[in-house]
């Protein structure tokens, strides 16, 4: 078992990075690895719990909830959260922590590899 860090800097829908981040994290968890993700910049938009889009069976936030359920540790950059008006992540799905870049530095310390998206 190894440890994987992911730095995600883009939000849901607009760019493909959130999907790749989910797919890599999910595959790592399925293989029994540990996953720690840091949501930076627009990445902090991903876990808003009210995502609704008529044509899609699953929203981006559902994918992130699935990662949390499988044991992923997900931390959002607090400065980015507040800059974007998300008020300390008040509307986040359960299990997302709001932190800071020192948490990312700690992820870099702990993991075997870092993926940036």
């Amino acid at each position: 078992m190894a440890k994987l860090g992911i730095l995600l800097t883009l939000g849901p829908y607009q760019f493909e990075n959130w999907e790749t981040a989910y797919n890599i994290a999910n595959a790592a968890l399925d293989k029994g690895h540990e996953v720690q993700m840091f949501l930076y910049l627009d990445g902090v938009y991903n876990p808003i719990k009210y995502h609704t889009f008529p044509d899609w069976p699953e929203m981006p936030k559902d994918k992130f909830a699935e990662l949390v359920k499988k044991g992923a540790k997900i931390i959002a950059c607090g400065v980015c959260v507040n800059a974007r008006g998300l008020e300390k992540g008040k509307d986040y799905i359960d299990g997302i922590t709001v932190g800071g870049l020192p948490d990312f530095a700690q992820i870099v310390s702990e993991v075997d590899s870092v993926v940036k998206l």
Partner: protein
Amino acid sequence: MGEKNVLITMNQAPYGSIYYTEGLRAAVGVTSGIDEHKVNVVYLGDGAYFAIEGVDRKDTKTYIGTLKKAENKLMVEKESLEERNIEESKIAEDIEIISRTEVLKLVQAADVTIGF
């Protein structure tokens, strides 16, 4: 796992996106944990436009100051400047010009390379 050698590459032109400054904030952030990781920053491709002397550093000067104080280097790839016809005389004093071969050496020496 402890202290690591982190290379940050800056690939995007200043101002079109926020990465020119938030990449530096992340670089500073990487040095801010309990383990003090080593961080180098290198400007590649369109990122090289940031190395021009007159670029407004209002948003970045604090980060650059912090990085320099901790002896982390800012570098720009010579080939990226040439491809964009940017004369070396136009480059800010505090950014070192290095060759692509040297960039490769930095990549090889780093534990992880993160591109912004």
